[in-house]
């Protein structure tokens, strides 16, 4: 296997858009094992923080340092977007695409893709253009696409928002399997129950800053800040 890309050190990083600071300054270390869940109100910057980690956002200031060289780091992580980005191809081709990019030959890629398609119960639609899939089906497909490449670091932005109870369970199972097999997972969710089920540690974002950070158990049992307390109660935060 290639060299370990984690831990990642983010130092004093912030992201600005059109002159407005969206998140930061952020100081964050991502260790090489674990299951982190990022929580926070809408617009608090969860997606932006995930994108910063992934390298999709260039920090205005500050640094972001991987354990490996940048190229390896980039090749060894997958991102599942909040709004699924589907290639204008069939469901199956959506999964084979990144595999073929990695140099896997077409047949092997198709076999792997078929395996994943059946894991997410989409066999019947594997040759359907991805645009015609239902909201939940798209979300499952983009998850399968990410898992199929077997990344060291998996970043998931609200992967189960459109999924029903049983699909959520299945996906959570897949994630836990990947986690146990050594994949480092960072994920956002609005589902507090899901946070409790999956998280080992929690990052609580508030107005673009890390407001609380710690073990999941203690966060859910006795959140420190007033804002986290209100968030967990589902109260309106001012």
């Amino acid at each position: 296997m290639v060299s370990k890309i984690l831990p990642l050190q983010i130092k004093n990083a912030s992201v600005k858009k059109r002159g407005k600071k969206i998140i930061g300054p952020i100081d964050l270390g991502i260790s090489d094992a674990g299951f982190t869940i990022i929580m926070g109100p809408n617009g608090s910057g969860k997606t932006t923080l995930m994108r910063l980690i992934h390298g999709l956002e260039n920090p205005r200031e500050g640094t972001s340092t991987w354990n490996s060289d940048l190229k390896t780091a980039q090749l060894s992580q997958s991102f599942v977007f909040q709004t699924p980005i589907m290639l204008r191809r069939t469901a199956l081709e959506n999964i084979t695409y990144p595999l073929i990019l990695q140099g896997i030959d077409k047949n092997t890629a198709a076999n792997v893709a078929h395996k994943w398609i059946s894991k997410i119960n989409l066999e019947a639609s594997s040759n359907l253009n991805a645009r015609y899939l239902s909201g939940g089906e798209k979300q499952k497909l983009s998850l399968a696409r990410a898992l199929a490449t077997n990344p060291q670091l998996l970043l998931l932005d609200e992967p189960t928002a459109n999924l029903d109870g049983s699909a959520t369970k299945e996906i959570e199972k897949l994630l836990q399997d990947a986690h146990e097999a050594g994949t480092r997972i960072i994920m956002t969710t609005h589902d507090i129950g899901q946070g409790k089920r999956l998280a080992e540690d929690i990052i609580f974002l508030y107005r673009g800053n890390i407001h609380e950070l710690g073990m999941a158990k203690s966060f859910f049992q006795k959140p420190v800040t007033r804002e986290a307390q209100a968030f967990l109660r589902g109260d309106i935060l001012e």
Partner: protein
Amino acid sequence: MNDIVEGMLSAFRLIFSLDADLFEIILLSLQVTLTAVIIASVIGMPMGAWLAVNRFRFRRLTIAVLNALMGLPPVVVGLIVYIMLSRSGPFGVLNLLFTPTAMIIAQVIIITPLIASISHQAIRDLWADYHDLLISLNTTKRQRIFTLVKDARRSLLTASLAGFGRAIGEVGAIMIVGGNIDHLTRVLTTAIALETGKGEFAFALALGFILIALAIIVNLAIHSISKTERASNW
């Protein structure tokens, strides 16, 4: 007005008389134009994609210049190609002047900026969709361009067809570099110009109608091969 009616009638007569000279001219027109369109597409489409995916210092200027090159006056292109290919020019030894190859070269120069510009516009929209995913998948520039051209192929068809349209109707450049030599480099448009100069307006129109019919047939053929308008693929 009589000329127009007379032109239509003689267009039919010409077609049904299966005039050998006419077919030679039609064939050469198609051969020159289709070759030019294919070459220009192979150059222009990746160029458009390249401009869509790259951010560099003089990008705006480059795009503006590319757009401006859509306005290259055919006569000027013809002149420059003529000068290059003429005996005393740098490529004179190739002996290409007044051959179909010279005409293809001129047409490629004229339609490549058009195809590249329209491709750029079409691919820019797709790139906005794909941007995050392709960056996240750590694709190389070359892979991005390839993926975008492949998945935007339906929109890119318009670019090729616009190029075809411009080339099949063009006369200024190929007149100069082809010379409109009978049985050698005469195509529909140069024949039309010739008949116009002779004052044979009805015959010129007849050839014009044949050219338009040809363009419609080619377009229908391409549409039905690519099945783009059937059950929209995306």
